[in-house]
């Protein structure tokens, strides 16, 4: 159970760009350990599905892990991490503050002033909000505006096919 101090410390580490050595993970598939975050780099061992690892770093699609004496990089989607690696600060603190008021039980409704619910009942009772739709329409953008935004962020369009369904019969 995270306490508030730990959470704030984590947030501060995050904001300072520090690497979290505290995070653990588990391999959801067997993997080769690579020396570098690239499949072309040297094979420095292997790690079996189900292995518990310490997470050392992450880098664009790769995650550096240590298990026992072995250390290396594996694909980031091969590791399920056990705790928030980089939660956004303020929302996390708010969450911790709520947790500090007592553990929630499954199914317990937490009443918070000003919260707009989106439960099944709330949705069922919803009334058409035309003004809201007009407001929404006011933010609608053209394709060229979006392209300009992408250029500002140096986002480069890439041609990537959709991924096949791994469970589909070939």
């Amino acid at each position, binding site marked *: 159970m995270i306490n508030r101090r730990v959470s704030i410390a984590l947030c501060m580490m995050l904001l300072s760009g520090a690497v979290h050595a505290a995070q653990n993970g588990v391999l959801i598939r067997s993997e080769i350990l690579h020396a570098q975050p690239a*499949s072309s780099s040297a094979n420095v061992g292997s790690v079996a599905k189900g292995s518990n690892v310490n997470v050392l770093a992450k880098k*664009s699609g790769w995650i550096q892990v240590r298990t026992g004496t072995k250390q290396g990089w594996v694909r980031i989607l091969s590791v399920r991490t056990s705790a928030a690696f980089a939660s956004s600060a303020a929302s996390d603190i708010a969450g911790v503050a709520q947790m500090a008021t007592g553990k929630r039980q499954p199914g317990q409704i937490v009443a918070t002033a000003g919260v707009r619910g989106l439960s099944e009942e709330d949705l069922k009772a919803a009334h*058409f909000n035309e003004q809201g739709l007009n407001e*929404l329409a006011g933010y609608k*953008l053209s394709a060229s505006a979006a392209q300009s935004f992408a250029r500002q*962020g*140096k986002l480069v369009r890439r041609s990537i096919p959709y991924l096949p369904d791994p469970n589909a019969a070939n």
Partner: protein
Amino acid sequence: MKKILMVLLATVSVAPLANAFDLNDLGNVLKQFPTNQNTTTTTEQPASNKLDPATVLLGALRQNSVDDEVQIGRQIAGNLLGASPLVKNAALQHYVNQVGRWVALQSERPDLPWQFGVIDSTDINAFSAPGGYVFITKGLYNKLNNESELAGVLGHEIAHVVRKHQLKILQQSQWIGLGADALGREVKGQDTIQNLIGSGAEIMSRRLDKNAEFEADRMGLVLAARAGYDAYGLPAVLEEIGHVAPGDSSVALLFKTHPAPDVRFSMLSAAVGDRLDNLPPGKELADRFHRVK
């Protein structure tokens, strides 16, 4: 995250439905839809000027008719905004539209009237409605760390729209046809759509077939990557959501309507495999991410 529909209470009374919308075999449902018909759109009404919801829906499902689809989506979106209005933050809404529109441009339906909004709810969820309406709750938005994660979430919702998942679930609706023959589009078009959608925004609490969600995850990841973002934003969000206590009310609806986050992560892992090994790194753009706290 997710899709869906809603509406204010229609004037008709609707029988409570226990599991009317649980689709366990979307694949078979899909085969029932016309996909390549060069039929005229439903804007050409018969001389009687009568319109029935089923006709509207079929029109919306046709490849060449976007009008009905957008009208259905507008009704649904308007009702969602009735349950939870937009966050009053123009800079935030503009930013989300910039990211969303750019990601949507990478899809097969770049020219839909895409509109994106952050709704004022602490719940952790996202929704979409036919025709290009996409919403993310403030609760989920505040869990994001960078622009690539936002792109992944929006990509998932965009995929639902592109694949017309919501329209296909509507096709299962037992409500279709209620009160239809008394309605004409000119006068009561909105009522027609309401009858089609049923009771309130309740339809938003129905789940799609799990394979539709897995497909939206796979497509969302790719759409964000096509847009130049780091491809791993969506799985990072799934991990983040997976760390929320299952009993937490903020994820109750999300967990009811979607497969568990760790299952979704594993499915993405299996789908990606080594396919993206040689993809040059994309951008996370944490520095540009519009934070609202």
